[in-house]
């Protein structure tokens, strides 16, 4: 458990350091995500890596536990709107309308693209 959490924190730490050292506009945890994914993929190729947090479902179960309660983690930031009540009173309705319209447009665009692209790519595969 502790070793698994350490591995996750270590990935994030390396990510944060890399992002700052290279001054790239990517959040550090996202680099950490890629690192952890690469580690897991490397473990498939090199069984010697399957020890400690990488062995016996260690880092996997720690991650699942954290993700099962992901929504809790947004609350402290969300409560920050108490500082913006004047802004909400002024623009609240507009923000709701904007988000609603944008949700519909984005869903349609994404799903249409996915369907179009997957039929396009599968047709190409058939031709090969």
């Amino acid at each position, binding site marked *: 458990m502790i070793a698994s959490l350490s591995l996750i924190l270590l990935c994030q730490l390396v990510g944060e350091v890399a992002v700052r050292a290279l001054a790239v506009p990517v959040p550090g945890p996202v680099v950490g995500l890629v*690192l952890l994914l690469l580690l897991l993929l490397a473990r498939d190729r090199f069984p010697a890596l399957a020890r400690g947090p990488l062995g016996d479902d260690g880092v996997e179960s720690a991650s699942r536990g954290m993700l099962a309660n992901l929504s809790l983690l947004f609350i402290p930031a969300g409560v*920050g709107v108490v500082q913006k009540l004047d802004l909400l009173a002024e623009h609240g309705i507009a923000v709701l309308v904007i988000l609603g319209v944008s949700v519909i447009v984005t869903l349609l665009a994404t799903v249409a693209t996915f369907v179009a692209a997957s039929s396009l790519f599968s047709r190409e595969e058939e031709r090969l």
Partner: protein
Amino acid sequence: MSDNPFSLWVYLSQSPLLWLTVTLLTYAVADAVSLKTRRHPLANPVLHSVWIIGVFLLLTRTSYTTYFAGAQFVHFLLGPATVALAVPLYENRRRVAAAILPMLVALAIGSLTAIVSVVLLAQAFGLPRDVILSLAPKSVTAGVAMGISESLHADPSLTAVSVILTGIMDAIIVTPLMNFTGITDFRARGFAAGIRPWHRHRARLPGRRGRRRLCRDRDEPECAGHLAAGAAGCDISAALIPAAGQFCAIGMALSSKSF
């Protein structure tokens, strides 16, 4: 104990313990209610926790800074949780590899549509610049969206709320909208919902005697993927169709990667 109950409050209200407890307790209750309503989108536990805690802070005249001194311990975990998204992505690597090209194309178009539509609409409504910037990253994982918001010098708290609201609207809209358009590719539906991540889904598995049951135990192998996907943000259809649920998780992990 002090003679003056007020001095106890003064002490407690300044300590992290009280606000950490308030955050966890409110969420635990809101989450239980959400489970009772079988994860109805309008019973969203984050939405209700946020306003309940907000009202409590206003009533007790507590500043957000004081509250955050306690709640920061929860807030900190957003970073590690983002790293942890590597696990559902890894567990679905075969599905990801099988559909990687359509996913990347849909991801690019979807993210672009989300950002452009919200910025254009916000400009049409004449919203101030800092509000527009706070809304722009709303379709990314909240943790990442707040990071982007910060680097744009916008307001992360407004971004967090817009991500949450987007997730709720998504959950309400996606099933009727997709049925209306007649799209039945559940990989596509799950993926589209995953791009606007967030909200807890209703993961259901075939139960005994063919009845569906809520997925609660994350140790069950079938549930693990569902719960990961649920954290990512899936709609009812996604939860009912395992493939869509998997694509939700992938959509979320990838959409956070796209920034």
